[in-house]
């Protein structure tokens, strides 16, 4: 099975690519519409600023392609900023809106929660949703790697597949039909992370 990893110049694609290969699929690192069409699933990674990322996706004419593919029920996994882009808006954004595939917004950690910002390091998964295909076999209390200052606030709470606690409880994994998103980095979360990527490859 071919899985597209969208390469739009926003951060790490090597670890994701290698992880997908390890899980038995063929990663296709691409920024071409037709190659996305030819893949069975899509991964949208991302590190950096929300506006820059959206601008790149638009410039490459990938924003509309991604939306179209998701509408056609192709499974999509957004990682970190790639997940945040799935939402409608972000507090980080000055002039761009997100893909709007998930309802809600992305907000910044507030200093009033009494925690250092960015949220950086290994933290537990809480409230792991039993039925979520992406998190199948992943138990609450397993730790994954986070590195971020913004987090999603889905308006539809049903899409939350797992939470994380960092002064505030926030949604760190989301699942809605064929749309999946994680705030943490599965490709950097050693065995647990690989399990999640394997789930995406095999079951989502």
């Amino acid at each position, binding site marked *: 099975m071919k899985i597209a990893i969208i390469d739009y*110049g926003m*951060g*790490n*694609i*090597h*670890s994701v*690519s*290698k*992880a997908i290969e390890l899980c038995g699929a063929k990663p296709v690192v691409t920024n071409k519409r037709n190659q996305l069409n030819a893949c069975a699933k899509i991964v949208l990674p991302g*590190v*950096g*600023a929300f506006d*820059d990322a959206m601008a790149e996706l638009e410039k490459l004419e990938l924003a509309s392609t991604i939306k179209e593919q998701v509408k056609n029920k192709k499974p999509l996994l957004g990682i970190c*900023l790639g997940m945040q882009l799935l939402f409608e808006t972000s507090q980080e954004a000055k002039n761009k809106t997100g893909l709007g595939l998930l309802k809600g917004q992305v907000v910044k950690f507030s*200093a009033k929660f009494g*925690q*250092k*910002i*960015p*949220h*950086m*390091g*290994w*933290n*537990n998964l809480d409230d792991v949703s039993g039925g979520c295909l992406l998190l199948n076999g992943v138990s609450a209390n397993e*730790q994954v*790697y986070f*590195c*971020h*200052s913004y987090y999603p606030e889905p308006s539809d709470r049903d899409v939350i597949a797992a939470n994380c*606690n*960092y002064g505030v409880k926030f949604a760190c994994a989301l699942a809605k039909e064929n749309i999946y998103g994680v705030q943490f*980095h599965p*490709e*950097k*979360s*050693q065995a647990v*992370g*690989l399990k999640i990527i394997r789930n995406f490859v095999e079951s989502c």
Partner: protein
Amino acid sequence: MLSKRIIPCLDIKDGRVVKGVKFLGLRDAGDPVGVAKAYDAQGADELVFLDITASIENRKTLVTLVEKIAGNIFMPFTVGGGISEIDDIRNILNAGAEKVSLNTQAVKFPELISSAAKRFGSQCIVVAIDAKKQGDFWEVFVNGGRTPTGIDAVIWAEKAARLGAGEILLTSMDCDGTKDGYDLKLTKEITSKVNIPVIASGGAGKLEDFYDVFTQGGADAALAASLFHYGKLSVKQVKEYLNKRGVIVRL
């Protein structure tokens, strides 16, 4: 709860690990991928690679190396050493590093921190500070600890955080290599002044040192090099010890 992190640090020269790791029984103790894998297996939370060659012709070697590491280990790592431009940062991040660490260039051109943070997000910009006690303050040194700057390390840390650094990698030059423990006063001073994570570095020699730097120094992560490389302690031993004493770590 967020875990305290234990971070081995590797010096890289011409794409090879220098001061090779002795204890792992690796056939090639200079191979960064092999060493990274071994630390991965020990449960290290992150790795730091410092490129000590840092010449222009070595940039490409470094980027290739970062790609190789990212393609072989599934844990976060930071790359530092001689990074001077936005393009360097982009290349290293795109090659698969989680974070880059800026030192000398950030002191010379503090706006590098703000433009990098704006471009790539604070979460991937680490500012490394090498500090040495001078009378009643800690002075920042650059160029691998060779050049004094007259800058107060505490004030610099606050400024770096304000400019958008997402983390401070704080090395005490007084304690580095002594194995007498981290500089708790310096660490405490900085961790109490900035609201970004601080990695303490320099001086780790025994298990208690890690406990002290987390509980007294307020550090978020502790870095060590030779202690781990020579196998005096393993990452696993340190984490089991901390866990027993009630410090939250990832086991």
